[in-house]
């Protein structure tokens, strides 16, 4: 092999490696950006709650559970129909989720709930002329504590407190990683672009890297959806189940979007390469 041939092969290997690194960096950057736009986004969580009908279902479930408590407490179902309608679940849930993302106290405020319930029971006792002997304060307190516990369990999202802990801890490192990967992608692309003498070769190596990145990113949602694992999650309530499935379906939708962006860029680079290549042959 001639010296120029060897040189060409080494150069090809170096640029091939740079293309691979570009693909790898783009793959990691896509994952980080998907996490940023979904897992680490308060708006995404709130949108998922709204889109999956979470608020309405939590309200129904809370009403159902309180009615069950009412069966053990001598309160009719109608009492809770009226009472739960007055509770603004949307506001309570929004405050609950916001608290995690803003790292403030995440305890659900039960004071308002307790006060409203106590007021509603007192009104009910007066309306029905119930003997005060049959509604002892001690039992009322016991009932309100039980109802309050049901309320807290209904409005809190299972495992969210654990996940939110990671969200708060990993927010800054993720931001630094995104910046680092973005810079690395730009530097690698710049090296490929500015160190190649021939214009068409610049686009060829960029196409390899973007193509590799596209395939790697698209594999993730394909594997997840093909395995069908998301709808098989074991969650006790319908509201949580729907929220989980809706949340992760939307999350993996972002992988499709990022892979589509990478595919578009790869195709664009390929056509520029073809144009430049044909021009170079013509010259």
């Amino acid at each position, binding site marked *: 092999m001639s010296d120029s041939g060897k040189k060409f092969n080494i150069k090809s290997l170096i640029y091939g490696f740079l293309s691979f690194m570009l693909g790898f960096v783009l*793959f990691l950057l896509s994952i980080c950006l998907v996490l940023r736009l979904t897992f680490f986004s308060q708006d995404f969580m709130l949108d998922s709650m709204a889109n999956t009908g979470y608020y309405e279902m939590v309200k129904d479930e809370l009403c159902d559970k309180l009615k*069950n408590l009412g069966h053990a407490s001598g309160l009719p179902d109608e009492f809770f129909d009226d009472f739960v309608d007055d509770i603004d679940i949307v506001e309570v849930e929004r405050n609950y989720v916001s608290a995690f993302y803003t790292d403030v106290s995440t305890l659900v405020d039960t004071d308002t709930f307790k006060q409203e319930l106590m007021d509603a029971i007192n009104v009910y006792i007066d309306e029905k002329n119930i003997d005060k002997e049959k509604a002892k304060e001690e039992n009322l307190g016991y009932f309100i504590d039980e109802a309050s516990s049901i309320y807290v369990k209904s409005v809190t999202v299972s495992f969210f407190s654990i996940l939110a802990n990671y969200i708060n801890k990993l927010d800054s490192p993720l931001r630094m990683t995104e910046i680092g990967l973005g810079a690395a992608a730009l530097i690698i692309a710049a090296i490929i672009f500015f160190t190649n003498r021939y214009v068409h070769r610049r686009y060829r190596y960029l196409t390899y890297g973007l193509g590799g990145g596209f395939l790697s990113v698209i594999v993730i949602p394909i594997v997840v959806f093909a395995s069908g694992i998301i709808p098989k999650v*074991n969650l006790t309530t319908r509201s949580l189940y729907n929220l989980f499935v809706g949340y992760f379906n939307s999350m993996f939708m972002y992988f499709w979007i990022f892979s589509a962006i990478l595919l578009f860029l790869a195709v664009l680079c390929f056509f520029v390469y073809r144009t430049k290549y044909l021009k170079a042959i013509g010259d």
Partner: protein
Amino acid sequence: MDENQSSNRLISGMNFIILPVIFCILILAISAALVYPYANEFAEMSKTYFTDRDIDIPSDCYDIFVPADGDSEEPEVKSVMDSKPQEQRTIPLSSISYPYYGQRLGELIVEDCQIYASLYFGDGNNELNNGVGMYTGGYIPGYGKTVMIAGHNNTDFNGFKYAKKGQKVIIRTYYGTYTYEITDIQVKTSTDSSAYDFSLNYENLIMYTCYPFDELNLTPYRCFVYAKFVSGPVIDKND
């Protein structure tokens, strides 16, 4: 020469497919190697959270542990009339299909207290909303051990405010009819574990409900009604 050129172009063109595929395989292999120690742990843990069956929660069901209306089968309950000679007979354990949680087991009747309630296996909200519920940590009638049944004091077990020693309790199940006799009535707190004993080796029935009766709101007290076994087919556990 032309042939060489076209061959080189073909190889060069194939690179646009082959190289991204190779890159993809390498990227995923490296990523998998990097996350393997954590992924393996996560995969093991996820088995707890994921099932291998399809989940379909009906729209009228808010909780997967509570069957939607109409889901529970109604087993055929033998009437008291059918049970004439069978009280003293023995039935092999293998001939009984053990009830599942939420299944309607039969009926509980205390005529003197005007109690006529559907009896369910399990004492969750769904069961107690529809009748009285048998504690699944206890035993079924005929097993020769402690049977424990709960009910609401404002509905099905409200009649226990008239309970007295010597009154008859009849439990009709799909495998036989059992008769018990009330021996004692006690009020205890809900956390008092001395109110029941599942280690007893003789058939006995404990029924309990909130106390006082007709009270508004929850109470921490329970009324326990104890009954001794009188008659009914005995389950042969050695079969």
